[in-house]
């Protein structure tokens, strides 16, 4: 049994650690040891689903999950719909808690994205919850629910159009008083598809020659708006998502293959480009939208 210890904080900053452990796991059944997990966010949950799917595809067996000792962490995982989403990909050592209704900070439970109708479902679902969180928690105008829905739609379509594999999306609001003194909304979308390099290779790899790789593919899509489609009028999605996230002074990053690219606002210390990370198929898109005013402001 390959034991993959999960970090205490299973979130954006520890996703690489998780992927590294998963890729390094030798053949055979795996166990995710989540006993010491105390905090999880949508990035961590979506990454864990991707990791579970990766192991299932590789071994043909669902990995086991040893649940967190922290009841808060367990309860959070239930509320955001992790156990339901992981059904068939993970087995747990004992019955996980049932999701209790009424966490006002969960904007969007983990939702699978496998077909066009799922994107409609996501957009429909966020209409009521998003309005309350965007305006009350983040202090955005009431109308912000519209551009928010549009970026969610575009980011989910990225899974359908480019990954050609299942993906998941989730969003939750947090109090980040200690980190940046503000509330934030964390949105994560992940898939286990062919990644940006695989998606763009046929159409664009030749012009990059030897420089072609995960980092250049991400730059091509993220900075230059290239897509796998020969139609040069496509590729607005990621560009428009970036523009809207910048308007909200938010952070956005895409992790694919061995690289990550990011738009980094002044409150974040993430590097704009990383390469030579643990190779992991698919793509994970993370967005963090901060409140307009400081919590004490």
């Amino acid at each position, binding site marked *: 049994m390959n034991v993959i210890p999960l970090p205490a904080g299973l979130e954006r900053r520890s996703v690489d650690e998780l992927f590294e452990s998963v890729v390094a796991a030798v053949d055979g059944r795996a166990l995710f040891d989540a006993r010491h997990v105390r905090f999880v966010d949508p990035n961590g949950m979506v990454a864990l689903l991707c990791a579970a799917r990766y192991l299932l595809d590789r071994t043909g067996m669902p990995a086991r999950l040893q649940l967190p000792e922290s009841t808060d962490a367990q309860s959070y995982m239930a509320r955001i719909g992790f156990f339901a989403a992981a059904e068939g990909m993970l087995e747990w050592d004992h019955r996980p808690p049932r999701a209790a209704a009424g966490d006002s900070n969960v904007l969007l439970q983990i939702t699978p994205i496998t077909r*066009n*109708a799922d*994107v*409609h479902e996501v*957009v*429909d679902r966020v*209409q009521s919850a998003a309005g309350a969180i965007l305006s009350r928690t983040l202090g955005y105008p009431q*109308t912000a629910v*519209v*551009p928010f*829905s*549009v970026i969610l*739609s*575009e980011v989910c*379509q990225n899974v*359908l*159009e480019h990954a050609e594999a299942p993906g998941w999306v989730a969003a939750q609001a947090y109090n980040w008083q200690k980190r940046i003194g503000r509330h934030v909304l964390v949105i994560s979308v992940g898939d286990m598809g062919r990644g940006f390099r695989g998606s763009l290779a046929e159409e664009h790899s030749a012009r990059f020659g030897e420089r072609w790789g995960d980092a250049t593919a991400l730059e091509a899509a993220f900075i230059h708006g290239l897509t796998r489609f020969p139609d040069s*009028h*496509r590729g*607005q*999605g990621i560009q*428009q998502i970036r523009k809207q996230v910048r308007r909200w002074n938010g952070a956005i990053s895409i992790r694919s293959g061995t690289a990550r690219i990011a738009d980094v606002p002044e409150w974040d210390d993430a590097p704009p480009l990383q390469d030579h990370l643990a190779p992991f198929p698919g793509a994970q898109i993370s967005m963090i939208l901060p409140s307009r005013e400081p919590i004490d402001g």
Partner: protein
Amino acid sequence: MADARFDPVRIDVATLVRRSVASLYSHLVTRPTGRAVRLAIESQLLEAGDPSVSVIDFREVTILDYSCADEVVARLTRAYLSDDRPRDAFFLFRGVQEWHREPIQVVLDRQSLAAVVQPVESGVELAGTVTEAERDVWLEVERLGSIEGDPSDHFDDPEARAALARIVERRLVFPAPGGGVHALGALAAG
């Protein structure tokens, strides 16, 4: 003045979404949805006269994403610009809400296209990429409703005449078969 023979084709996009994609949805999101709606619009045009003016109504649409705007506004506009267009159709996009403007503007700009739009509770305007001269001439045609005879006679400035020729070519005004041009805003008002 609107040509009395014209009965604009009125197309409610939200109804088309529900009819073409799924009865439960009224948001214009995802490229397949946009494509289905565009094809449904084109199918309705088959029953219209030739030439025709179609009013594509967005009033009941809350969310319009970039992929759908590309299909329903930019691709539709582009398809009827080319010489081998399927029909002689002109479009006016009505009921455009504040939050629809950016997706529409972005997708038109990306292809250097322009379209006539009518925001909710206001007059018609141009969206997309147009020169100042094109906009000025277009506004003059809209102000007048129509120009009978040779419309270039109405403009003394050669630059304005050239701009008039371009907005005719870009189908932002309607060239009457017997001469003259009509404002799409006036024709769409019916």
